[in-house]
């Protein structure tokens, strides 16, 4: 009899925990989407060997012809990385070679234009050793694009074109 009662108690506790979890999940869903944005990182390799500009980079052809990029004779789009950023949660992306980019959205301000405050960290892996090249806190408009350049990538120089946009919108 005691044993059956104990079993019934356990079932009751399990059902109660399940209900709490179910309502908790429902409440979280009602809270709406977590604030965030979308980051698009174009990883470019710049080199001194002349070559035509790839189609994917034509949109930036005028910028890539001006200093400091006019140093180089050709640009190659190595890859495009898309990541969803959630506030106060860092997201990493393997760029090229040993380089890894970490982005963290710190805040979002909606005024005349939407602006993001975010942290950007560039690291280089060498086996188990991770070296921080730079870590910075930045502010920029949603949809704007800026560049980070300089790290060596074999005979090329790494250039990152970074754009942050609202999640529904697409990067320019």
């Amino acid at each position, binding site marked *: 009899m005691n044993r059956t009662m104990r079993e019934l108690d356990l079932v009751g506790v399990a059902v109660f925990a399940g209900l709490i979890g179910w309502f908790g999940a429902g409440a979280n869903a009602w809270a709406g989407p977590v604030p965030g944005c979308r980051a698009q990182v174009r990883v470019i390799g710049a080199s001194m060997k002349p070559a035509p500009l790839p189609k994917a980079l034509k949109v930036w052809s005028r910028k890539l012809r001006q200093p*400091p990029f006019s140093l180089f004779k050709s640009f190659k789009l190595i890859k495009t990385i898309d990541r969803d950023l959630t506030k106060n949660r860092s997201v990493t992306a393997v760029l090229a070679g040993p380089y890894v980019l970490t982005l963290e959205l710190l805040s979002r301000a909606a005024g005349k234009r939407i602006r993001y405050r975010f942290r950007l960290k560039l690291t280089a892996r060498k086996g188990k050793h991770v070296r921080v090249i730079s870590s910075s806190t930045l502010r*920029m408009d949603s949809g704007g694009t800026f560049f980070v350049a300089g790290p060596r990538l074999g005979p090329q120089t790494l250039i990152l074109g970074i754009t942050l946009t609202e999640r529904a919108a697409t990067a320019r």
Partner: protein
Amino acid sequence: MAHVSDTTLMKYLDGELSHAERAEVERFLKEDQSANGRLEQFRTVSEGVKSYVAASAETEPVPDLWPAVSRAIAERPKETWSEWLAALFTVRRLAVAGAFVVVVAVAVGLLLRGGSGSRSVPERARPSNRVVLESMDYKGAPPMVFEIPGKDDTGPTTVIWLQPGPGDATEDATGQDGSI
């Protein structure tokens, strides 16, 4: 001289200016201290990249592609006059058809837009490409911040140039995932 653009300063560094232009830039540099600073930045970046490229060119193996290319040229079948003429007419016909499609597409596009021509995006919709750098921790030499002037109202574009530290010149080209 009112102003010397960054492009002109780069050309000055690379020795691409005429004698008269060089003299003019040098006169400007004597007057403008900020231009001297910009020139020094460009010199640092330029020399860094050039020395690195020269060092990597010495170690990079250059594959000899010519034997394979010459063999492919020799093995290519010879085109006869009739084949050449047939190909020419096919290309002309394709070109005429392509031009027709373009004309129709442009006409339909103009009709759909109500013939109002190009509409500019409202100013508030255009984001700035300028970044505000609140703080930066770095290894090696301090980073340089450039601004590429913008033609439209998006303004200048920020470029953060990370200068390599002493051990960075030998950074591996391939990562753990083998990607470049």
